[in-house]
């Protein structure tokens, strides 16, 4: 009964939004607009609730003296710093210079340094993949090796031949695989969406 109700609600909401997309009608537009506002409200409430939960979780960790004390101190301290910068008297909120400085001088460099680790993690993954020895990992590493050879910066006729081969690999087999996968994803996304709307879930195995 409960599942039927939620599935019905989801179906009705989706139908109203779809009809509003296709049909120009003031009443329908008003109804769809109200639904979208409710969704935005839900997302905002989720964000605030999530932040509060995160803070509470780490404060509890600190109070209990858990193993990740320093992580909790850093997180709670960072949250406090941003909140103080944005909410102190005279602050202009999220556009306040202090908040902007914290974002541009601390958060952006930290995020950039994290993403700089991707290459190292990729090398580690290659090593792990080869040690696991699965067929997929071996083929992936072999294909990556072939592409590295094809993209070697060599001049003259051999270099031109390698560049042509690399372009062919990118445009023909690689594009075919990607498009095939994307078509498969699109089909199964439709099936998954239908299953959700029909309320077809997984049972206990």
């Amino acid at each position, binding site marked *: 009964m409960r599942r039927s109700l939620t599935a019905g609600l989801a179906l009705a909401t989706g139908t109203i939004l779809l009809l509003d997309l296709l049909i120009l009608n003031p009443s329908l537009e008003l109804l769809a607009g109200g639904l979208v506002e409710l969704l935005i409200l839900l997302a905002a409430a989720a*964000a605030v609730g999530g932040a509060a939960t995160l803070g509470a979780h780490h404060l509890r960790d600190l109070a209990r003296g858990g193993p990740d004390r320093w992580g909790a101190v850093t997180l709670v301290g960072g949250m406090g710093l941003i909140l103080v910068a944005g909410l102190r008297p005279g602050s202009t909120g999220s556009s306040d210079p202090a908040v902007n400085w914290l974002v541009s001088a601390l958060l952006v460099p930290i995020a950039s340094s*994290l993403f700089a680790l991707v290459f190292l993690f990729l090398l580690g993954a290659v090593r792990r993949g080869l040690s696991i020895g699965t067929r997929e990992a071996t083929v992936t590493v072999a294909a990556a090796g072939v592409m590295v050879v094809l993209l070697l910066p060599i001049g003259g006729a051999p270099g031109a031949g390698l560049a042509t081969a690399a372009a062919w690999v990118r445009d023909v087999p690689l594009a075919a695989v990607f498009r095939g996968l994307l078509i*498969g994803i699109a089909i199964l996304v439709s*099936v998954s969406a239908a299953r959700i709307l029909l309320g077809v*879930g997984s049972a206990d195995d």
Partner: protein
Amino acid sequence: MPNIGEFAAWLVGLIAGAMEDSSMRLGPVSTIALLLVPLVLLSLVARPRARWAGRDLGRLAAVGHAMARAAESGTTAIVSLGSAGITRATGALDRLQTVAALPILAHVARAAARAGVPLRVITNDPIAALLAEGVLIDAHRRTNTPERAVNSSVEFVGEGRPVAGASAMALPGDHGVAVVAGGLAEEGMLVLGGLLAPSSWGIGGTAAMSQAVGPLLEADGVMIGPELFQAPADLAGSHDARLAVHAANRLLWTAIAVILIASLAVAAGAPDPAGFLTSR
């Protein structure tokens, strides 16, 4: 601006006109054979393990064994729902990957509950955390292990893709089983490397094609592209699966019947269906 009735009449007329101008390229038998192809295809993708699944997607059938080994070695299990979330500002395809990961989480959670392995779920979306919490409660209810529920937890690690990568890297690597399933982006390698590399056994799954290399290299069980959406169907019980397949089949048979009947009617010189349907 035309009203809806005129638009419907135009649409029906357009289809009828197109049918009238058409003829079969391959003859009736070949045409019907070709029409059967999408029917079989849809059955194939919608139908779970009962008849069509030829292999164990993502090695999900081995989760129980991996959990048993984790229980023997006294280690824990961890699941990441990717970094796309459900209410985060990202594409619909990414969000659906998180939704598709929930049945996989349910499967892993039931195995962990049966084996008595503490399970930790991390996500960077509060709504996904809420749903995961419900999945864990349901897993302990279904396996009749409420006393073990205290060992399972869901953690919202904060907003943002860098946070997802950083939290995965910062977690202690004593997991017997690690699962990463859901939408990933540029931080994907950090999440996969942070969770799967130090674990004894792991599954990686994403439909983000730019991140397909990560699971292929890091994970013991892999779900790439459509497989992430197919795996939950494989886990489904036979009754629910049959329901979806029957619904899809009926839709297809109805479409085929309408096309055939309309074609025969036009070929027999019946009046214009558009005029008949719109009373004009």
